[in-house]
């Protein structure tokens, strides 16, 4: 599964994109985040305030409870600021 990070989430995590194999007990976006936070200080810093974390599962806006089974791509980013 591909994980993507954008804007300051990317900067704090210290990675733009990575291929990972999630632990078998990860069911939703929330589970992905909990797992990521065990992987190092960068991820912990990136995901320390979940009120400013948004996500997309297979390029569709999702929520923390969006299931991730079968997903090819999950992205994490701050609230969007285009336009």
């Amino acid at each position, binding site marked *: 599964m591909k994980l993507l990070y954008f804007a300051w989430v990317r900067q704090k995590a210290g990675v733009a994109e990575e291929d990972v194999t999630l632990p078998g007990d990860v069911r939703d976006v929330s589970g992905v985040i909990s797992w990521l936070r065990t992987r190092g200080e960068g991820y912990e810093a990136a995901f320390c305030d979940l009120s400013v974390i948004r996500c*997309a599962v297979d*390029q*569709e806006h999702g929520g923390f409870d969006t299931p991730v089974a079968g997903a090819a791509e999950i*992205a994490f980013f*701050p609230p*969007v*600021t*285009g*336009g």
Partner: protein
Amino acid sequence: MIRVQTEDFDIGAEVAALTAGRTDIGAIVTFSGLVRDANGGSVASMELEHYPGMTEKELARIEREANERWPLQASLVIHRVGKLLPGDNIVLVVAASAHRQAAFEAASFLMDYLKTRAPFWKREDTGGETRWVDARESDGVAAAKWKV
């Protein structure tokens, strides 16, 4: 039509291309957003990051939604990415319809949704230090009024 590009755009040329040879369009509303240096000299440049793939999907969805809600003869969304300077164009939205109210509402809707749904992020370079622009609560309020 949607485009994500590093190049600048020309409003007149884009509108002319949309309306060429047509006589059924009565009203065209364009919105263009520019890099603003609110405090004069505090923003040296801006970097626009986006999520390639998802950006195009979201813009296409937003445009489709506008065309379902209003009788539009033509619509266009262009968003620039990369490094931009104060005064540079960032975004262009065009809505063309037979009557002006549909064109005004559709252009406003396109912008409100683009602001809250399209995966773009702005980073300001104030000369030495960079700062990710915070999302504005008012943008969420503006989008919510359309009740998608």
